[in-house]
């Protein structure tokens, strides 16, 4: 099994950290993982994206042009990456701010209104974990218990009290995601 | 009184001056009348008297004193032009109980190595910077230095240093004295026996301050360059007293509070 993922959106949406949590969780599940961010000034306020690979085998190229799953969180990223999903692959997007919805017929498209839900629940900081939950529902590769282990490993101790809230957000995200 | 013969003069009991045991027997390449030889001797005397041979690492510059390591019997590192304070920083940080000094000329310290000089002093590295200022590039044949006086002729200021196009001479000792990292900044000379003794006292103080980890010690030695200035040794010393000393006045610029 090899899952090649791109997460793309605005800086500040937790794109890179969601990727990190995926990578940590994969590591906890004894998988090979890689996390390759776009870096530089574009991170500061502009668009950010990260390639994450989860695999049972040694990972070859950490830099990819086509993906099994694209998680898209703004319109610019939609324009850029909708066509990067492999035929038969998966596209997950948050509809907030999307003016042109994805149109491809050869892939499976899921919508998750995570921003709306997070705002309603006053949990904006958990936005990316709602999306993470949606991903985990439609691509059952990462198990919640390992995600929690990953969070414990990656977060400084002073943030560990937030882990239950992350878990709730993941659960809610699993419920929120809808096939288009 | 019977006149002393040459044989009498060189008898050990009649010697007023002896070479430091840390000076090697290598023949110096310095020009007759140059201040470097005396500065080396004074430094070697301090290292000998303070029992520092086994504890000292010296950093030599690029310039006339590049071969200084041939003349004093201690461990030496030869730095790239201007970089001696960077080497000294690492040596002292990695081996804090050693005595570390740099020995640099005006081109090395005040032109190409200005950044290293300023920042090493600003960090207050516990080292001694010995700065030999003769207002000219000696080794490369008498070009203008950052410390060349206004109107002074050199091979690259053949009509005299024009400050409107070539800038003014830099007083490095005064600049580094403004930095909190320096603890002791002084300007000395070696053109007289008295001057050499004062320099020796200054170096001894620097040894003490380095032991006490009080910050960077910066000793400028205003010196001559008979070859570069195109003068006899005697003329050059006179010229130095009349022209260099008024612009680079001798004496302490910054002294630490006594503990």
């Amino acid at each position, binding site marked *: 099994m090899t899952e090649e993922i791109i997460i793309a959106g605005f800086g500040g949406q937790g794109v890179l950290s969601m990727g990190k949590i995926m990578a940590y969780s994969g590591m906890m599940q004894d998988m090979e993982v*890689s996390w390759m961010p776009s*870096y530089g000034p574009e991170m500061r306020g502009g668009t950010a994206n990260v390639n994450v690979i989860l695999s049972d085998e040694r990972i070859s190229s950490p*830099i990819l042009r086509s993906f099994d799953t694209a998680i898209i969180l703004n319109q610019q990223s939609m324009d850029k990456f909708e066509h990067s999903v492999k035929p038969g692959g998966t596209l997950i997007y948050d509809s907030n701010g999307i003016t042109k919805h994805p149109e491809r017929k050869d892939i499976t498209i899921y919508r998750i209104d995570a921003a709306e839900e997070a705002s309603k629940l006053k949990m904006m900081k958990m936005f990316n974990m709602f999306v993470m939950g949606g991903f985990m529902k439609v691509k059952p590769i990462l198990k919640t218990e390992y995600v929690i282990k990953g969070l414990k490993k990656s977060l400084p101790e002073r943030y560990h009290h937030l882990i239950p809230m992350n878990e709730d957000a993941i659960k809610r995200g699993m419920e929120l995601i809808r096939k288009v | 009184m019977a006149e002393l013969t040459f044989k009498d003069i060189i008898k050990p009991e009649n010697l007023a001056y002896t070479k430091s045991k840390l000076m090697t027997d290598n023949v110096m390449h310095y020009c007759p009348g140059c201040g470097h030889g005396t500065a080396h001797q004074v430094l070697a005397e301090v290292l000998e008297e303070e029992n520092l041979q*086994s504890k000292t690492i010296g950093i030599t510059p690029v310039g006339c004193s590049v071969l200084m390591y041939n003349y004093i019997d201690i*461990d030496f590192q030869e730095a790239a032009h201007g970089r001696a304070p960077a080497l000294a920083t690492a040596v002292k940080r*990695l081996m804090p109980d*050693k005595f570390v000094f740099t020995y640099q000329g005006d081109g090395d310290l005040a032109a190409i190595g200005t950044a290293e000089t300023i920042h090493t002093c600003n960090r207050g590295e516990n080292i001694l910077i010995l700065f030999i200022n003769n207002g000219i590039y000696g080794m490369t044949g008498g070009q203008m230095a950052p410390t060349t006086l206004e109107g002074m002729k050199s091979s690259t200021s053949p009509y005299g240093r024009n400050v409107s196009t070539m800038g003014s001479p830099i007083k490095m000792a005064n600049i580094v004295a403004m930095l909190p990292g320096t603890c002791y900044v002084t300007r000395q000379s070696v053109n007289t026996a008295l001057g050499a003794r004062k320099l020796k006292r200054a170096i001894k103080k620097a040894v003490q301050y380095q032991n006490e980890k009080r910050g960077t010690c910066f000793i400028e030695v205003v010196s001559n360059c008979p070859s570069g200035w195109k003068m006899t040794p005697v003329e050059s010393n006179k010229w130095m007293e009349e022209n260099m000393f008024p612009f680079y006045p001798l004496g302490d610029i910054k002294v630490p509070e006594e503990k």
Partner: protein
Amino acid sequence: MEKELRLMKGNEAIAEAAIRAGADGYFGYPITPQSEILEYLMEANPQVTTGMVVLQAESEVAAINMVYGGAACGKKVMTSSSSPGISLKQEGITYIAGAELPCLIVNVVRGGPGLGTIQPAQSDYFQATKGGGHGDYHLIVLAPSSVQEMADFVEMAFDLAFKYRNPAMILSDGAIGQMMEKVWLKPQKKRSEEILPWATTGKPATREHNIITSLDLDPERQEKFNQKLIAKYREIEEHEVRYEEFMTEDAEYLFVAYGTSSRICQKALQLARAEGIKAGLLRPITLFPYPKKRLNELADTVKGMLAVEMSAGQMVEDVMLSVNGKTRVGHYGRMGGMIPTPEEVVDNLKTFIKG
């Protein structure tokens, strides 16, 4: 103590591995995409744990000269930078090579020339492997292709540097520096307290004074010294060549690629094989010494070699020298911070096969 598993950026792995390898000092100056090395070390603050000195210098020039000073004391010291900063360090590097001092220099390469870009590139190959500064000299150059190797090569580089009293370089790039992967970290090693006989540590009565210099004004002696250096480089070429092969047994066409490009070629290899093209890959791990002999052997069995680099074509010259006309050699490169995708590498292999 057992090895520890962590998820780290390549830059962080270098920093942590340096602490664990018992490094004595790091001297650096911030530049993208490698500032995490200095940041990580400052936060880890090894001065209080292992006694390792970490210092932010006023410039790359000062940093490399601090490395000179520390290395001249026989200490395990290092610096890191990215391309424009490494250019600044070249003066110091040639002095270090000329004074035969061991040290580690890390270059997390970005695109150039000039200020260029902050994105990954492999355009400093010539600079790293052919000298870089003035005079006849070589660095030992290691090219990691994973975060694990970023960590592992720190100790390897120090070992080789001290074995040959020669500066060693880890030639990485922004992709591997910024990428996170799993890394097994070795247990903490104690810093060495050994006093090396050639080092400037203060002259005891029992030996002559040690002088660390790269200066000899006598041309006859300087030439002898040059010959000594060349003999050392030949010895390094004899004993220290390292490379990795992928599916070379039956390969008809061989990719030659190092670092990030070699990762991309591993994927391209799978794609090409799926299309029935018998592709293989040789990944040089040491760029100096270069795996010349092995490439020359492979030239007898393959129909052609395609060097894939993030440069205008630098390493390809070493491939050509290695095969010495025995087989066709092509080049595919992206520049300016662009990274080739596996698909485009395969397309270019097909074009190359057509001739």
